[in-house]
């Protein structure tokens, strides 16, 4: 076990993957000499050569489309897109080609590739640097979408993602990059598409992922003061979604709250609520509620604390689970 930040754990995963498999190549903007703007690829080009880790021209659609061709040619590309909102120029390639190639070719062409996207806020970034764009990708059949909530998971999930036979959108919560934890490289974690109960509890299940796992755990601690015993489930994989682990938890507790940073309306949380409701209806004592980002464009840094779900908002929502019927609220 070594103390590593999530950024360092990701770096270790990339290094180990490059070492273990000649087909693995890393490409993107500034991933070479600079080591990426978040230093995730730090030193890899220097240590393994710039045919294993290289800077591309500045063109996201080009990077992903080029990686599609490399994957067709027998490589396993790991692509870095610099920030969430700068992945959008590549959206066409990701949704129309990365996601569909296996299906379009009736199984003849697979695209084992990883698209790494630093996402979400809480770092004081200016415009276009803090989007939570996971719903765009989870809404796209053919993609796997995963997001680690801890340094250990960052290592394990990234190794699994690179080994995956299908393309993986790997979403990295940037506000967690610098948090240190002890990390083992034994790879004995849960498989990539399995959710994990991070903290057992009896009264209510908090369902969280990525940047919100830490917030959910903090909330669970705070909730003990109110006499609530809160269970926290870390989804890890957003697509496919692990109904089994999540539903088992909600059936035990009878109450659930989904937490994410992205805007709520039409968001990923709506999918979870629907699925949990479908699977656990007779076990529920209250509707499944959501705590999400506000339905506004991501705010400027000075005001972002109002956007992000925080412990108090989650506790207030848990309190509302002592459900009483309320008037129907029309929205939108």
């Amino acid at each position, binding site marked *: 076990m070594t103390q590593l930040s999530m950024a360092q754990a990701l770096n270790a995963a990339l290094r180990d993957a490059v070492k273990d498999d000649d087909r693995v190549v890393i490409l993107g*903007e*500034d991933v*070479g*000499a*600079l*080591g990426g*703007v978040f230093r995730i690829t730090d030193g890899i080009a220097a240590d393994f050569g710039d045919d294993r880790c290289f*800077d*591309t*021209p*500045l*063109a*996201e*659609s*080009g990077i992903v489309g080029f990686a599609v061709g490399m994957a067709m040619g027998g490589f396993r590309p790991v692509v870095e897109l610099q920030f969430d*909102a*700068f992945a*959008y*120029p590549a959206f066409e390639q990701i949704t129309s080609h990365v996601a569909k190639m296996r299906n379009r070719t009736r199984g003849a062409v697979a695209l084992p590739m990883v698209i790494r996207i630093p996402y979400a806020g809480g770092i*004081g970034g*200016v*415009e*276009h*640097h803090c989007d939570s764009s996971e719903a765009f990708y989870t809404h796209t059949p053919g993609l796997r979408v995963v997001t680690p909530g801890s340094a250990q998971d960052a290592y394990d999930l990234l190794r699994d993602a690179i080994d995956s036979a299908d393309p993986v959108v790997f979403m990295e919560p940037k506000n967690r990059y610098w948090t240190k934890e002890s990390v083992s490289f034994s790879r004995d974690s849960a498989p990539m598409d399995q959710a994990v109960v991070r903290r057992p509890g009896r009264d209510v299940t908090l369902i969280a992922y990525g940047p919100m796992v830490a917030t959910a755990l903090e909330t669970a601690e705070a909730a003990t003061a109110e006499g609530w015993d809160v269970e926290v489930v870390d989804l890890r994989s957003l697509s496919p979604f692990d109904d089994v682990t999540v539903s088992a938890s909600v059936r035990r507790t009878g109450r659930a709250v989904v937490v994410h940073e992205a805007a709520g*309306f039409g968001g990923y949380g709506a999918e979870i609520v629907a699925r949990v409701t479908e699977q656990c209806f007779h076990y529920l004592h209250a509707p499944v509620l959501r705590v999400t980002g*506000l*339905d*506004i*464009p991501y*705010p*400027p*840094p*000075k*005001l972002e604390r*109002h*956007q992000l779900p925080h412990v*108090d*908002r989650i506790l207030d929502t848990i309190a509302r689970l002592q459900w009483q019927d309320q008037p129907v*609220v*029309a*929205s*939108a």
Partner: protein
Amino acid sequence: MVVAMPRKNPAELLPSATPVRFVAEDASAVDEHDGYAEPPGDRLRKAYRLMVIGRRFDTQATALTKQGRLAVYPSSSGQEACQIGCAMALGPADWLFPTYRDSVALVARGVAAPEVLTLLRGDAHCGYDPAAVRVAPQCTPLATQTLHATGLAYALRRRGEDAVVMALAGDGATSEGDFHEALNFAAVCDAPVVFFVQNNGYAISVPLEKQTAAPALAYKGIGYGVRSEQVDGNDAVAVLSVLDAAVAYARAGHGPVLVEAHTYRIDAHTNADDASRYRDPAEVQRWRAADPVRRLEKHLLERELLSAEEVERFRADAEQYAADVRAALNTEPSLDPLSLFDNVYARPTRLLTAQRAQVAAELKEES
């Protein structure tokens, strides 16, 4: 759409073989200007004054990041000839489409410094009214604004206005698909837009040779039918002359122009970047010797288009300007969190009204 004027002869589109230049690095006059006209002396003096103020603004903004007053600042130190040139080439009815790097251009265009810095301070996404100052919001996603600039140029022309739009982009941004689509649209619909590429050598850490294999970025125009030119971006006389000509060309209805300025980013990409990881300090030293502000100063002094007293006076103006910027930024503006719900839609939706009430209740609890 307006049908494009046929451009039959590719040679007419080609940039000059070497960057257009009036003033050598040692400030002596050179004749590498391919028939471009030299701007009049008072215009050059004005450019010099704006460059001195622009340089001081830039160092002030960088200092403010160190004091935590600005979240981030992308310096354009070394690029002053370009920053001032693009602002000066435009008339009041023309539009500028800048990037995050172009704060000095905004200052030169007359946007108040605190309004320019609102974005980088983290208070709001845009600190000024674009329509009032004819400056689009500073654009962070690369090259996306080049298409907006093209569409606006086309729209203004269709409405019978003879305004020109200047779209700024870096060398890295010329690799983005949007940049190429903008050149193509502009040429096909004869839009009066000037694409001004500040080739400062690097896109964050990636040097030009990893960005393109073209002989110069200016050559990217020809394939689209766009008249192209390249200029020494550290020679303010040349930049002004070429941009004046480009704007006049577009205004006269001949269609778009692409101008590439060869320049250099003296500081790191932003205050958060570590440039020593990817570039040699000796290279930076070499470019310091090509400093555009000192070069113009020396040139104008030698030709007696500028006096030593004026140099002193402009420096004092710049100090005063920086002091005003400091004072303005040293007060913490009060931001209303409830304004987050304004301007998402023309009229607030019920969903937003409900969320506004929730945040209002939280704020009340906090206070």
